[in-house]
């Protein structure tokens, strides 16, 4: 077990535990903070996979900007103890059963897939995720989706103004 593997298991454990805590925390602000921990753990994974650009973008955009938005939304909603809905036992049970079945299917499928057994991801090598390679691809092969994505941004801007601007 070399250093990379130790880091991988550490980050995976951190990501999974933090993701569980997002759901289990009673306080929504704590959930958001745990979610930031998830993003940092995943960024660590990206670095291990040598996808440095993704790691940084993940931190800047998700942990930075989008989490701030999440906090705003939580504060906007004025969540108090009284306004929390009562937890229905049956709903929890149904949720556990259906979510558990999906988990079981996914895990058993991956276990059965002999092709991906005993194969590791490309760790600490490969240049697919490097910013230079990514930039070349983005501005040559993927330039059309890149331009089209600006339409998405424009519609989001219009939407923000329509919904958010006071009449």
């Amino acid at each position, binding site marked *: 077990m070399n250093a990379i593997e130790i880091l991988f298991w550490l980050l995976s454990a951190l990501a999974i535990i933090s993701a569980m805590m997002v759901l289990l925390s009673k306080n929504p602000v704590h959930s958001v903070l745990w979610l930031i921990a998830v993003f940092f753990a995943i960024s660590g994974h990206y670095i291990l996979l040598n996808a440095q650009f993704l790691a940084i973008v993940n931190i800047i955009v998700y942990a930075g900007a989008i989490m701030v938005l999440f906090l705003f939304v939580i504060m906007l909603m004025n969540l108090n103890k009284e306004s929390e809905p009562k937890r229905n036992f049956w709903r929890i049970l149904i949720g556990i059963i259906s979510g558990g079945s999906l988990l079981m299917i996914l895990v058993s499928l991956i276990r059965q*897939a002999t092709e991906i057994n005993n194969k590791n991801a490309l760790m600490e090598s490969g240049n697919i995720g490097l910013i230079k390679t990514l930039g070349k691809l983005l501005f040559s092969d993927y330039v059309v989706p890149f331009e089209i994505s600006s339409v998405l941004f424009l519609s989001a801007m219009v*939407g923000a103004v329509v*919904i958010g601007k006071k009449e």
Partner: protein
Amino acid sequence: MNAIILSALGGIVMMFTGIFTQNKIVIKNIAIITLLLLLIGNLLHFYGIYMLHVDVKDMLQFNNFGLFFNTIAFTSTLIYFLLSGTDITKVGINVAEYFALIFFVLCGVSILTSFHNLLMLFLGIEILSIPLYILTGADKKNLKSNEAALKYFLMGSFSTGILLMGIALLYGASGNFSIESVPSTTSKVAEMANSSILTPLGLLFVFVALLFKVSAAPFHFWVPDVYDGAPSVFTSFMATIAKAVGFIAFIFLFESRIAELGPSSRIIIPFVIILTLLIGNITAVFQQSVKRMLAYSSIAQAGFMLFVLYSNNDISSEGILLYSVAYSFATIGIFAILIKMKDYTFEGYNGLAKKEPLIAAANTIFLLSLAGIPLTAGFFAKYYMLLSAIKANGQNALWLVIVAVLFAAVSVYYYFRVIQAMYFKEGNPEIATTNTSFKVILLALAAIIIFIGLFPTVVLNFLYF
């Protein structure tokens, strides 16, 4: 490509129209003119005239089928603007923005009718959905509209998450984003994971996400609340153009790959079709509000359109185009009338035939077309879908066809309730005053539906000219 560029530019034009003028009539007319330009631009593409020569790197492929669907979508939108344009301007104060968002939806439509790459599929679906979430919540003062928008947004983003998961798995299996099932030999990722399990799983995820977008059971739960809560003008648009394009995406993605979903697809697809027909039709019977009934009936209509996945042949491709025309035109017409009504319940329609005979007559034709009565476009639409199933699977498909016909008979009941209310019940319906041009367009639309019902091949000939 013309359609994508022009619709995006059209959206920008509308954005800025809202800055320079607040005059609702001017805004509406500019929207209509821009849409006409878009329609012309799309038609020019048939003749090989392009605005820009863009190397799309095989990410988009333009064929007559997709272009023809574009034409249908833009024509439907034009009719929709002409009939309900004035009502769009009454939803709120951001009038030009509503039109801009509709143009952005059309941009998503034109991407979804030409994508040849999973990345483009994702972009198309997002460009289609995000403006729709906003349009759903456009009536900010109305609590139901707010709730519908939030519900639609949360459910929609969840399904987009599933779509992305599926695309990621497919990418993992093949090492590229192409929608064709040729595994790349150069990619290291492909060497590692060129497995039999990732592809079907990924396709299943994409399949589920698309079923959500076309509101097929068992992913239909959002439909009644969203369609009911959204401002009626936008429900009309959502339920027609934005929905029909989902089936086009289905065809592009699955026409060559449906078998890769595994042997279970033989069970899954008929199951989805029957469940969609069952839930849509049976629940629609018990509705008291016409708007909510139309929401459920749109689920039921999706059940028929899903036959395109079951049969997956030339007839079903033609059928889905015919179905899009019949369904979109009729639904736009019905909603245009519904918006004018004060009371959305069945009782609200009581005695409409006495008060507004022309509108009632047009409404009857639209309802008959949705029900699939002969001599209307809806009949041939349903006929083509069922015929394609027989052609594809012979005797094995007979039971499915019989079930579908039975449900079509059920649907006659709730469509006829409206007709019954209009003609055979006494009452004084409150309907907003309509001008002559509204009635003329409505009657012309009804005439088109009957014309297509008499000569359906006229529409389809466009495919092969």
